[in-house]
């Protein structure tokens, strides 16, 4: 396949044009809105066709860990007057991009289709299609982010997604609460974003570019770790790594900036599925994978792993006690993102990315299923649900597939990816004892994940209805294509075989062998080897591709991590232990939930009553909202602002500036007194003869002619300067 403008650009531009057209079209209502909705869906479906073509070329065609396409063009330059500066943009497609493109377009297409069902009754397709307008812009921005070849354009699309997220959370703008939620979401992520920008600026200044390939090359050349390039006492790698990783913390809702994601559930459920579960939050993890060499060079991996571990466990504990259907899913998203970040930290590069993909699919499915439950029963409180499986069989099955996947049950996708992350964490722990901390956090979180997800399922779908009235009013599930096809499609891809198998032409899906030899995912997604980029050549936009000359398969997954045989054996053994441990943990979590909510042999109420204080702490999310809003903002920031503003107008302006008027008046008073006493009384009145003389002079001076005054002023000033 040849990569030209027309085979890459439509991926981003189709949804973007849909956005531009719909921005004017959708508002008109009636048939125009229907056309707009159709256009939005068609656009994203169209870009998924282009994405499939690229995926096909990368996975079924070239099948090499090193294969990539990199095309650049100049966005603008500042060359002139003896100065030069150029800002390049471009697309960089490697295996990771190809997989991301496929995932984003397909999941987004499914969610768009589902939305036509879900938003249909919400004031004419989400208030006259407004919902779809922002969804198109969002998808376009996400795809742009994935295709970006440099951090700067990634940042641009990153912020655009933040804006779309802001607008979609605020979809129900007549509610006061949504206003709080979207400001919170935007501001919390913005904290990370400004540091991200700072990191970009720091790198750009040092190496003159922020393209990934240039960054990798600079790392290989030691520029990032050279002491001459230290920033504020730390190496450039550490400084920029922390700054950029703060962007990930904000966007992917990691501790301590995790507070915005649960509130983001105020938006319509399909947008929660796309933005706050499947793609936008995953962009943070995608970024941290792209900057992985920086994190490594800056010795930040442990920090990253601990942040991920804390988030994974902390959010899981909060999810234990939530009663809101969507809140459980929101916290589980935070927790799963924590696993991905943990994976990045422990160097489990391809497993972290795989978890990103598998999570995107099962979490999108979970949210869509949750949306159809909420749509049916018109409430979100789980204590009022129960027994819903009789009314919505299809949703129930789809949701169980996803629950098993997220819980990490074997043969489901979540097991494949999460188990590898935990296994790699365990390997790190056997090397260095300090890594036990993130490892244990991760395993504990896995137990809780299995528990709270099954708790949610049992509370909502099993047992007897707890609120008979709500149950009776709940709609029987009707089969409608635009709801069921997305659910069915996404549930099929919760199976592990798609990710752990081979897709390389030896058979469409083939299980991986014991040493992972055939696993396409492991083979294709590997840590970027920075040395490789030292002699890297760029391709200008519009040129013919420089193709890899080697043919299939050119690279195999290095299952030994480049280790000695003995060490590789150790890794292998630890991985088996890890896999065994996570299976046991997953099943014990499920079993505990079963005992509590089906069998009833363990009474959850007793636990709540006995540990009430802890229960309330968890319900309030460790009071982090309290600390930030009531503490930091209301007690710190706002009083400080008021004080400063009052100082500015009340003190500085009033006395410091207007005070000069008082001083001037005082001086004028003195002058007047002097004038009266000496000039008038002593000299003028004292000498009668002088009266006439002075009269003449004064009359001439005080002529009232403004020009004359100005001449005097100028003369005085001129004289002053001349005297210098």
């Amino acid at each position: 396949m040849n990569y030209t403008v027309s085979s890459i650009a439509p991926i981003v531009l189709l949804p973007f044009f849909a956005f531009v057209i719909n921005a004017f079209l959708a508002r008109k209502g009636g048939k125009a809105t229907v056309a707009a909705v159709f256009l939005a869906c068609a656009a994203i479906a169209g870009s998924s066709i282009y994405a499939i073509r690229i995926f096909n070329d990368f996975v079924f065609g070239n099948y090499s860990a090193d294969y990539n396409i990199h095309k650049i063009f100049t966005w603008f330059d500042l060359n002139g007057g003896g100065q030069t500066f150029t800002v390049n943009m471009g697309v960089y497609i490697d295996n990771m991009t190809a997989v991301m493109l496929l995932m984003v377009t397909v999941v987004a297409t499914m969610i768009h289709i589902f939305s036509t069902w879900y938003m249909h009754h919400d004031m004419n397709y989400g208030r006259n299609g407004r919902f779809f307008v922002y969804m198109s812009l969002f998808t376009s921005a996400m795809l742009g982010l994935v295709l970006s070849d440099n951090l700067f354009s990634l940042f641009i699309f990153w912020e655009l997604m933040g804006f779309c997220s802001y607008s979609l959370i605020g979809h129900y703008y007549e509610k006061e609460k949504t206003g709080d939620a979207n400001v919170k979401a935007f501001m919390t992520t913005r904290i990370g974003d400004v540091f991200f920008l700072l990191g970009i600026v720091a790198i750009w200044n040092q190496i003159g570019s922020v393209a990934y390939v240039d960054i990798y090359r600079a790392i290989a050349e030691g520029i990032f770790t050279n002491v001459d390039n230290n920033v504020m006492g730390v190496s450039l790698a550490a400084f920029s790594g922390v700054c950029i990783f703060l962007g990930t913390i904000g966007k992917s809702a990691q501790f301590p900036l995790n507070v915005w994601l649960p509130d983001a559930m105020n938006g319509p459920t399909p947008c929660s599925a796309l933005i706050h579960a499947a793609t936008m939050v995953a962009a943070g993890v995608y970024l941290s994978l792209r900057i992985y060499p920086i994190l490594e060079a800056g010795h930040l991996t442990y920090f990253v792993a601990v942040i991920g571990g804390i988030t994974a466990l902390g959010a899981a504990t909060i999810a234990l006690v939530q009663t809101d259907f969507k809140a459980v899913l929101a916290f589980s998203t935070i927790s799963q993102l924590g696993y991905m970040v943990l994976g990045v930290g422990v160097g489990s590069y391809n497993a972290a990315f795989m978890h990103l993909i598998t999570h995107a699919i099962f979490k999108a499915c979970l949210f869509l299923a949750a949306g159809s439950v909420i749509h049916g029963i018109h409430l979100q409180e789980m204590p009022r649900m129960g027994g819903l499986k009789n009314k919505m069989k299809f949703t129930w099955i789809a949701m169980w597939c996803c629950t098993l996947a997220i819980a990490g049950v074997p043969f489901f996708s979540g097991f494949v990816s999460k188990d590898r992350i935990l296994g790699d964490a365990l390997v790190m722990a056997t090397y260095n004892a300090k890594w036990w901390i993130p490892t244990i956090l991760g395993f504990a979180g896995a137990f809780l994940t299995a528990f709270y997800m099954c708790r949610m399922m049992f509370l909502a779908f099993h047992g007897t209805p707890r609120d008979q009235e709500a149950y009776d009013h709940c709609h029987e599930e009707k089969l409608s294509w635009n709801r069921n096809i997305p659910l069915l499609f996404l549930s099929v891809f919760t199976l592990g075989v798609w990710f752990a198998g081979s897709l390389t032409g030896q058979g469409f899906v083939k299980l991986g062998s014991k040493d992972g030899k055939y696993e396409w995912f492991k083979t294709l997604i590997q840590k970027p080897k920075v040395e490789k980029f030292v002699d890297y050549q760029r391709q200008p936009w519009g040129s013919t591709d420089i193709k890899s000359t080697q043919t299939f398969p050119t690279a195999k997954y290095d299952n030994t991590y480049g280790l000695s045989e003995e060490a590789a054996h150790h890794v292998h053994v630890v991985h088996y232990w890890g896999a065994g441990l996570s299976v046991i943990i997953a099943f014990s979590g499920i079993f505990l939930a079963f005992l509590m909510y089906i069998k009833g042999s363990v009474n959850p109420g007793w636990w709540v009553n006995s540990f009430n204080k802890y229960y309330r702490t968890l319900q309030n999310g460790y009071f982090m909202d309290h600390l930030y809003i009531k503490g930091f903002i209301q007690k710190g920031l706002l009083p400080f602002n008021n004080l400063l503003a009052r100082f500015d107008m009340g003190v500085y302006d009033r006395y410091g500036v207007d005070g000069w008027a008082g001083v001037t008046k005082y001086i004028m008073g003195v002058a007047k007194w002097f004038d009266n006493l000496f000039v008038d009384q002593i000299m003028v009145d004292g000498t009668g003869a002088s009266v006439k003389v002075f009269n003449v002079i004064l009359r001439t001076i005080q002529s009232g002619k403004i020009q004359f005054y100005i001449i005097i002023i100028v003369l005085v000033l001129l004289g002053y300067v001349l005297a210098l």
Partner: protein
Amino acid sequence: MSGSSSLLSWILWMPMIGVLGVLLIPKAKENAIRFWALINTAMTMILSAVLYMKFDNTIPGMQSALEIKKSWISQFNIHYHLAVDGISLPMILLTSLLLFICILASWTVKKQIKGYFALLLFLQSTVYGVFMAMDFFLFYVYWEVMLIPMFFLIGIWGGENREYAAVKFFLYTFFGSILMLVGMVALYFVTGQGEDSFNILAMSGGKFKDLTVDLFGYALPFAKVFFIALFIGFAIKVPVFPFHTWLPHAHVQAPTAISVILAGVLLKMGTYGFLRIAYPIFPSASVYFSDAIAWLGLINVIYGAFCAMAQTDVKKLVAYSSVSHMGFVMLGLAAMTVQGMNGAVLQMFNHGTSTAMMFLLIGILYERSHHRWIVRPDGTKGFGGLYTQLPVFSIVFIIAMFASMGLPGLSGFISEALIFLGIYERFTTITVIAVLGLLLGAAYLLWMFKRMFFGEVIEENKSYTDMNAREVFYMVPLCVAVILFGIWPSPLLDMMKASVGKLVSLLAMY
């Protein structure tokens, strides 16, 4: 020396023709006055477009084909000397666009229409004068004369406290002008009162580096002393902390169109002064003081943002946000790198469009509400649920707001990013603090937006009508500018980069 084209003169005097026309039309024919003013500004805009087309992007510095130089007061070697380069052209285009829009936005002015439009056009001419004059004396004359229409426009058509604000604006700026005058006169004598003693271009290039001046018995470096004089003169206009307090008063009291011109164009005259006069004439002193300029710019960014967050009057909030955003321009100017300086000039233009949008929108809202309280002093809501009530208005407001806070894809982002790139190398600490300005900028704007636009529509807002066709019509060009230059900044950057690069190269020698 003088070129063949008299285009610049036409642009400069076209508004004065407008003034004459307004004065000739009988007072009772209000619509005739309005339309005459509109046609006049449209003509000026067309002339500016011609100027843009004749402009050669590749020439660094003045465009000799467009230069006009005639003797004015020959005894003192004062010339009527107009020219344009890549730094002034964006400002001239911005002025033309904004004045056209301001005439439309002033359609609802009721009081003494004749005087109002005459003064507005007069103001336009003086602004062009400042941006075109290459003779220091001529520059100074326009700089001063501009105060007169401004004084009356605020003092007569302003809000309740207009006289105080007008006097304060006048005196404050006048104080700065006196210092500038001292600098000008000093330069006149030090260059030997010759042919080029008022010629800004001829004096450029660091000729006064080694001179000293005797002041109060001390031999002080000439360049540094008079750089400070010029600096204060221009800094008051920007306004740089601590000379910023006239701005909130003037903005809050000024009528909508005047706020737009004030924030959109007049503030840029201050930074333009640095680029045109202070920097080229005293490059050594500029480099010497760049640390101080950077710190002042940083204070502007942060202090302005903090103060903005505390405001309950929406216009005052935007006024303080101008203080904050002009701080970014100062940071870019202090950087003296190619990215920073281009970013600063670009930010001058972009802030002109985005903040003009904000003030216009607040004016539109004010015409319906007759107050501007986000939260009234008694704690009740001034606005609520405007999103539901005014959908079109809200969308335009969102564009303006996000452009102002520097969302990528809208114009403010590129200039701010360039400024950060520019300052980082020399002022790492300042950069680290200044990025917080972006955070605070988003905070006060979004918080304001949330309080005014979200939630249920409050009772008194239910009578408000959405933007009418005239209002939509004059917002569209600004929306287009904000979005277009966010995606494709090259038209602006191509215009300025040669001239800015030349200045950067000059500064780099010191």
